C-alpha cells in the first residue's frame, strides 16, 4: 500500500474565484484515517485556509457531509483506504449553494423544517402527571424516521430537489412522518396541508437515491411513499364522504 494518497479538493473563495477550482494535496494514507482526517491533516499542516465543517467525528452530528468521488457521504465515516490508490475527489454537497470551499448553505432546509411542525402535538392541557404510554412495538413504528441527523446527504442525492428547490425534500418529510407515526402525537392533521401540497410529497418521483445516501437508515423515500398513500386515502375520503361525516 502506498503511504500517501492525493486529495483533490474543490476550493471556492468568493471574491477570489468565480467558480470552484480543484487543488491537490498529498496526505498520509493510514488504515484508520477517514477522509476527514485527511482534510484535517491539510488544514493543520499544509494549508490553513481550507474551510469545511466537522465536529463529532463519529457520524452523529451531521456536520461533515461532502461529495466524495461523486457520492454524498459523511467524511468522518468514509475511509481513505476505500479509495486507494486515489485520487480522492472531495467536493461540497451538491444541490446547495456553496458558501466557501466545502461549506454549503443549508438555510433552505432550516427554513422548511419548522413548516412540517416536527414536534409532538397534543390537545391535552395541562400536561399529564405520568408518561404517555408507548409500547416497544409502537416505538418501532416510527423509530427509523427518528434517526435523522439532518446531514443533508439525502437532499444532495435527490435530483428532484436539484431541479426544483421548492420541494420540501426527503429529510423534512421523514421528520414529519416521524411524528405522524408516533402513537403519542395528534398533529397529523396540522401537518397535512404542507405535506400534501404540490411541493410536498407529490413532487417526489421516488428516485430513491435519498435512502441510498442516508447514513442512518432513515429511508426517507419510504416515508414519502407511505405518506402519499395516506394523503391519497384522505383525498378519497374527502371526496366520498359528505362534509358533516368527515
Amino acid at each position, binding site marked *: 500500500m502506498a503511504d500517501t494518497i492525493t486529495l483533490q479538493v474543490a476550493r471556492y473563495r468568493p*471574491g*477570489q474565484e468565480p467558480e470552484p477550482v480543484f487543488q491537490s494535496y498529498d496526505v498520509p494514507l493510514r488504515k484508520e484515517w477517514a477522509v476527514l482526517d485527511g482534510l484535517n491533516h491539510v488544514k493543520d499542516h499544509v494549508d490553513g485556509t481550507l474551510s469545511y465543517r466537522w465536529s463529532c*467525528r463519529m457520524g452523529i452530528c451531521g456536520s461533515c457531509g461532502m461529495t466524495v468521488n461523486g457520492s454524498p457521504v459523511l467524511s468522518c465515516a468514509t475511509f481513505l483506504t476505500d479509495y486507494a490508490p486515489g485520487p480522492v475527489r472531495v467536493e461540497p454537497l451538491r444541490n446547495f449553494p456553496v458558501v466557501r470551499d466545502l461549506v454549503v448553505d443549508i438555510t433552505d432546509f432550516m427554513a422548511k423544517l419548522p413548516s412540517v411542525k416536527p*414536534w409532538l402535538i397534543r390537545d391535552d392541557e395541562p*400536561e399529564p402527571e405520568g408518561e404517555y404510554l408507548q409500547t416497544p412495538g409502537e416505538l418501532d413504528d416510527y423509530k427509523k424516521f427518528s*434517526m435523522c441527523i439532518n446531514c443533508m446527504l439525502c437532499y444532495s442525492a435527490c435530483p428532484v430537489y436539484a431541479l426544483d428547490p421548492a420541494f420540501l425534500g426527503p429529510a423534512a418529510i421523514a421528520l414529519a412522518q416521524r411524528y405522524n407515526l408516533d402513537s403519542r402525537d395528534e398533529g397529523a392533521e396540522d401537518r397535512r396541508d404542507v405535506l400534501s401540497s404540490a411541493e410536498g410529497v407529490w413532487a417526489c418521483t421516488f428516485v430513491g437515491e435519498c435512502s441510498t445516501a442516508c447514513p442512518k437508515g432513515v429511508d426517507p423515500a419510504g416515508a414519502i411513499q407511505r405518506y402519499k398513500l395516506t394523503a391519497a386515502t384522505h383525498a378519497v375520503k374527502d371526496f366520498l364522504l359528505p362534509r358533516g361525516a368527515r
Partner: protein
Amino acid sequence: MSVFHNVVVVGGGGAGLRAAIAIAEANPRLTVAIVSKVYPMRSHTVSAEGGAAGVAGADDSLEEHLYDTISGGDWLVDQDAAEAFVREAPSELLRLEHWGCPWSRQPDGRIAVRAFGGMKKKRTWFAADKTGFHMLHTLFQTTLSHPDVVRYDEWFVTSLLVDDGQVYGVVAIELATGRVETIIANAVIVCTGGCGRVFPFTTNANIKTGDGMALAYRAGAPLKDMEFVQYHPTGLPFTGILITEAARAEGGWLLNKDGYRYLQDYDLGTPTPHPAMRSMELGPRDRLSQAFVHEHDKGRTIDTPYGPIVHLDLRHLGAEVIDAKLPFVRELCSKYEHIDPVKELIPVRPVVHYMMGGIHTDIHGATPLTGLYAAGEVACVSINGANRLGSNSLPECLVFGARAGQAAAEFVGSTRSAPGAAVYAQARDAQRLLEREFTRHTEGHERIADIRTEMQTVMENGAGIYRDGESLATAADRLRELRERFDHATVDDRSRTFNTEVIALLELSFMLDVAQSIVACALHRGESRGAHQRTDFPARDDLRFLEHSLVHRTPDGGGRVGYLPVKITQWPPGERVYGR
C-alpha cells in the same frame, strides 16, 4: 451595528435549548436568542450515548440517587444543589417524554431504565444508545414550536460585555460573512459545554474548546474545581470515540492482556457473571481509569500504535442484546475499528471525557456577575464534585438549564438597568480588537495546530490521570511559554467568509486560558480526591481540602486560586465504598 434581545443564550446544546424553552414558557413577552457556533442539532450533546439518570422505579428513592451522587463525587458535592438536582431530574426527563423523546420502553409501555456506573439502582433513562442524540433533537425540534425563540446559527461569541459587574450582552462573529456584531441583552446564559479538546485524546467533539469558561473567566467570573477532569475508561484507540458505559451496564467485562477481569484487584468487588450495581465494571469512572494506569504499570495492558489498551468484552451478551440495547456501539466498532463486538473484543483505553469544573454558579445557575448565568457542562453548580457519575450530566443540563432560564427570565423582568455608554464603547473596542485579530496574525510564524498539539501534550503529561507537584509546575511553565508563542501564531486565511482558521485561533486562545486554570487549581490542591490524583499527596484530606477551588483570572493570564466551603446538609464525608 447592534441588536437587542432580553436574554441571550450562548450555546444550543442540551442546556442552552432547555434554558431557551424555559424562558419562552416563563414569560412569552421576552425575546430570547440562541447564539451558537454550530447549528444546535450539531452540538455535542448529540454524541451522548448511555442515558440520563432520574429516579423512576418504585424500588428507588431520591435519597439513594443523592447518596450515589455525593459519594460518587467524593464528597466535593454541594448537597443542596444535588438535592435539587435529584428532585427535579425525573420531572425534567418526563417533560422530555411529553415533548416526544423516544425513550426506550418496557413491554407495558412505561419508561425503561438501565443500570449505570456508580449507581446503586437502575435509574438511567435511555433511548437505545443514542440518548443524547434523541434528547438534543427533541429539544431542538421543540424550540421550533416557539417562534419567539430567535436563533443565530453559526455565530461565534468572542466576548461578553460587562460594565461594573453586570453583563449587557455579547460580541459575536457571523461565520458565513465574517461580520462582527454586538448583541445587547439584559441577561446572558452561557451554555457552551465542556473543554475536552484541551487534551490530546478525548471523546469530545471538535467544538468543545472551553469557550464559555474562558469568556466568563475573562469577564471576571471565577471558575470552580477546574482540576477535576474526568477520564472515561472505555474510549476507542486513535479516534477517542466513546464506547458507552451502558455497554458495561448491560454486562460487558473489562479484560487485561491475560483475559483477566482486572478490576477485582482494585477494591472494586469480585467478578459476578451478571453485572452488580456499584461493583466491578459498574464502579465509578475515576476508579476504573486509575485501575487502567496501574495495570499498565504492571505490564498487563496491550501495546498498540495508538497507546496501551485493554479489552472490553461484550461477546457473551449475544447479538440480540447488543442489537436491541447497544446498536450504536456495534455500528461504531464496525465503522471505526473494523470489528464486530458480537464476536470480537473491543480495544479500549481511558480517554478525557468530561469537565467537572466550570463557571461557578449558585443553585439557580447565577454567577457572581449580575445578569450572567451558566448551565450544563460549562457550569459548575457542584453536583458532580470530584467525579461525575455517568448519566448525571444530561439531566444536569435539563434541570439547571431550566433553572437558569427561569432565573434569567425573572431577573430580566425585574431589572431596569440599560447599558450605558461604557458598554457601547466596550463593544466597539471588542469589535476593533477582533478586526485586528483578523490581520495581526498574518505576520506570525507559528502554526496554530502546532501550539495546540503541544498544549495538549503538556496537559496530558502534566495533568493527566495521575499528577504531582512537579509535573504540574512544569506544565504551568510550558503553558506560559505557549501563550507567548501564541502571540506569533499565523493565520493564512484572509477571507471573511467562513474563516475557520480565525475561529481555530480564537478557540486556541480560549483553550490556553482553560488549560492554565486547570493546572493552577491542580497545583494548589494538595490531596487526592476523585478524578484529581496527586502521587505526592495520595490521600484525601478533608481537613484542608473539603473545599471548592475558585480561580480568578489575573491580567497576565494566570490564575489566583482561593477556596469556598462545600455545602454539606445531610451526608458527612465518608469512605467511598464500591463492590463491598
